[in-house]
């Protein structure tokens, strides 16, 4: 009986049945299977800011602009829900936009008759009202408060009246010109606002949906888990801690597959897709797995279409030559590097009386930092060593630029002597002692800190490590309560040099902004202010080079590495884009899956091995026999 149940249960496919078997035209229904680490925090685009939620939300809510999926060096914007790129006014203080006509919200009970209505310019006013509404708790409010006219006033008025009246309290900087056209009026020149229009935080949500869903299920903010967007997918089910299922929206026509920008190695495969209707996949099942091991097992069984190679699976998947290991090569899998748009560094507190006032000392420490070895140890050599502040993909990144302070211990010692600490000791013979603060909650994080500590101590100085939690580190940086910080960096909000160089702008010194280096430099500020409002071109390129030069000369930080990881991709689901402004495994509408190949390979890779079942059964029978014999033998024993 037990064996029968056991045998009946012999199916290791963990996925629930697809929503459909075939499309209306009789072709196979295409499902994509991916994993996410945590539950999405919300499906409300104005509220959510975390990566996991974005993976879901980006399929449901289209944006006004979007990143070209293949033009990534540098990244380029293109219209998504807009009919054309916005037109900037001569003074640079306003932009005019025109929406594509005929874009519809998803069909939903919130609309009369359940039919989604057309998107109009007034919906954009509603988006910015929601960002201003304190009840929505949008983390983007402070960003728009700094640049969009009327945002600060509307937010303040809503706070004072305890509730935003959407009929009367409008954001004055959003001007509706006609049914499809609107204008954004800025408080200062800020061309980077266009990047925020490619972020889901400015995706239109239907006011009908908010009115309909808020208050449902006993929750005032239930809209946070409803999803009525204009994107290629809609959420059909979400089981917390288990699964999110997205289904293709019929008649989605907002975007098509691009016709240019194909990378050379993929061009042959992608050209036939040019101009085709999106999306290619009918259903996306995002299963939630916190742990690495189950994800890796699912990938090996063919039940996940792709996975980021994590530390638990790295040795099994990647050979010492940084290629796919033979086992996975034989399966036809593909190893794709994914370079995140981020830079990590060791930062100096320029207000510190010891480190901040002694350039030679900072340079000595920079020479002692062996970032190449660091990347090899902690990122298996995948992460590129940083030679500059800007990561690749951002305008101004110089691929040929050498590292200003390459690892050179002797040079470091020489600089240290010039800094007034020959052999690591001051003129009184006292050993120099510095404090290194960094994330140290886990053993690996502590090892990273110890690596930097050892690098510096090779100069003959003493370095005291101060390991703290991630949250505490943020707090310490904001308050300037440190001498040297490590294990920190910056992931791009948008691919513009401003997003990195602003970290050293004197008006952004923490706690007001994110210049926790407390770097103040008049020439840098002047150049930065000019660079911010200049269009990409030779002039701006020169400015970014000069800004980098100042940072090199002043050395307020030591760039260490740009984060990168490998993606292991199944042979039936080759990537069609390499754009990391979508999430690492996002950009769903551009993805493809060969379901016939997947089914064939899944069958090949998942033959249940039944002989151990018979051995186990035999053992159980023998055990029961021994049990009965033992009982019989002892039946007449005296106890």
């Amino acid at each position: 009986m037990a064996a029968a149940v056991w045998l009946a249960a012999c199916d290791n496919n963990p996925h629930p049945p697809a929503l459909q078997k075939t499309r209306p035209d009789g072709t196979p229904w295409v499902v994509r299977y991916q994993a996410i680490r945590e539950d999405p925090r919300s499906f409300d685009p104005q509220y959510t800011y975390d990566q996991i939620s974005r993976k879901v939300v980006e399929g449901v809510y289209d944006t006004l602009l979007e990143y070209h999926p293949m033009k990534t060096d540098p990244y380029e914007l293109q219209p998504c829900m807009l009919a054309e790129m916005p037109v900037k006014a001569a003074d640079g203080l306003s932009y005019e936009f025109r929406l594509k006509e005929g874009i519809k919200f998803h069909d939903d009970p919130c609309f009369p008759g359940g039919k989604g209505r057309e998107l109009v310019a007034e919906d954009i006013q509603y988006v910015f009202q929601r960002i201003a509404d304190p009840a929505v708790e949008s983390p983007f409010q402070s960003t728009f408060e700094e640049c969009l006219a009327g945002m600060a006033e509307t937010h303040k008025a809503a706070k004072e009246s305890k509730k935003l009246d959407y009929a009367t309290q409008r954001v004055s900087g959003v001007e509706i010109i006609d049914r499809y056209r609107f204008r954004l009026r800025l408080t200062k020149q800020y061309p980077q606002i266009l990047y925020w229009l490619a972020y889901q935080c400015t995706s239109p949500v239907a006011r009908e949906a908010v009115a309909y869903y808020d208050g449902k299920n006993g929750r005032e903010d239930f809209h946070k888990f409803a999803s009525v967007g204009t994107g290629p997918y809609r959420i059909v089910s979400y089981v917390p801690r288990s699964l999110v299922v997205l289904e293709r929206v019929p008649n989605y026509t907002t975007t098509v597959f691009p016709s240019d920008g194909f990378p050379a190695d993929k061009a042959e495969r992608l050209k036939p897709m040019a101009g085709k209707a999106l999306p290619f996949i009918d259903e996306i099942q995002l299963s939630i797995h916190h742990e690495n091991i189950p994800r890796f097992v699912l990938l090996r069984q063919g039940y996940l279409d792709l996975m980021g190679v994590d530390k638990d699976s790295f040795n099994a998947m990647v050979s010492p030559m940084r290629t796919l290991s033979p086992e996975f090569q034989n399966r036809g899998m593909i190893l794709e590097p994914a370079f995140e748009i981020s830079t990590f560094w060791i930062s100096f507190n320029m207000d510190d009386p010891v480190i901040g006032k002694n350039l030679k000392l900072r340079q000595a420490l920079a020479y002692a930092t062996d970032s190449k070895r660091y990347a090899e140890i902690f990122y298996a050599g995948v992460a590129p060593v940083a030679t500059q502040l800007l990561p690749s993909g951002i305008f101004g990144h110089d691929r040929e630029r050498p590292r200003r302070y390459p690892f050179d211990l002797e040079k470091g010692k020489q600089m240290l002597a010039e800094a007034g600490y020959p052999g690591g000791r001051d003129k009184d013979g006292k050993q120099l002692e510095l404090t290194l603060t960094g994330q140290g909650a886990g053993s690996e994080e502590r090892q990273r800190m110890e690596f930097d500590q050892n690098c510096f101590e090779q100069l003959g100085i003493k370095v005291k490590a101060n390991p703290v939690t991630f949250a505490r580190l943020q707090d310490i940086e904001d308050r300037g309560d440190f001498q040297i910080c490590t294990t920190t960096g910056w992931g791009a909000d948008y691919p513009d040099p401003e997003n990195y160089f602003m970290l050293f702008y004197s008006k952004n010194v923490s706690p007001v902004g994110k210049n926790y280096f407390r770097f103040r430099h008049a020439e840098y500020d002047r150049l930065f202010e000019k660079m911010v409002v200049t269009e990409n071109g030779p002039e701006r390129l020169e400015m970014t080079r000069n800004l980098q030069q100042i940072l090199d000369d002043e050395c307020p930080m030591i760039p260490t590495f740009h984060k990168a990881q490998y993606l292991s991709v199944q042979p039936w689901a080759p990537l069609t884009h390499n754009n990391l402004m979508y999430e690492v495994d996002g950009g769903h509408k551009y993805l493809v899956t060969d379901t016939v190949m997947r089914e064939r390979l899944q069958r090949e890779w998942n033959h249940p091995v039944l002989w151990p079942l018979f051995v186990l059964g035999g053992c159980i029978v023998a055990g029961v026999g021994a049990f009965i014999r033992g009982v019989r033998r002892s039946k007449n024993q005296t106890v």
Partner: protein
Amino acid sequence: MLNYLIRRLLYAVPILLGVIFLTFLLFRVVNTPEHAAINALGPKSSVAAREEWIENNGRNLPLYRQLATHVKQLGTFDFQPSTVTKRPMGETFLAGVGPSLCVTLPGFILGLWLALVFSLYQVFVRHSAADRTITLFCVAMMSVPTMVYIIFGQAVVALGLGWFPVSGFHSGLDGVRFLVLPVCIMAIAGLGYDARMFRAVFLEEIAQDYVRTAHAKGLPATRVLGRHVLKNGLIALITLTVGQLPKLIMGTLLIESFFGIPGIGNVMVLGIQTSDEPVVLACVFLGSLFYLAALILTDFLYAAADPRIRLS
């Protein structure tokens, strides 16, 4: 008996207050308001936004006032929604109890049954080679951490043999195939300890006078052990097993996390990983409450099972 119940309930109050106080210290004193704000708003949040969050969440109030509010909220089961997902705790808890019970209840019953069978068999064949072999196995099983059983189950049984899904949870009959592996692991992981414990209880029991009397009356060993020793031994086992009942509701952290079971254990792991204060506080509070309830229940069951015991 009513007096006893009232007294036990009153004893439970300071224990619960102690738990509340300790968790409060952990989250409100060790974890400063600034850290809580960064956890909630993200590392790129502005200091102004963090200060607003601190004010809106009452984290700027004096600690005694925060503690009073905290005790009042927990005492009236007015749990705060998760700071991460904003989901109300009641909804999260109710959604999680079912999946947790799907694993823990059969795992507990199977484990208990196996431990009883093995321990009784060992008593039958005590001091024999079979007894020593089973003891050896039990000690070995006790020495292996649960994590090893999980990795073995996922790497060998799910991946290597392809018998079961490695992770996931479906409702309905189809869900059975997701449960077999975690249930077996839960049963086997505790088997070594339980079987050793039960064997010790039964061996102590068979040295009692009533057992000798039963044998003297000519009852066969199977009947003596299967009815008299088992029944009397169970009294001691109630203490051991009823204490585990809260675990059934609160789920198992590792097993649920690795097998993707959306139960309470999983909620708690995620709550800890994301520093989700309301979730962890509610889970710890409810866990202590269930544990205290189980202890009181143990006393009453003990009295019911053994007429010599009087609760007064």
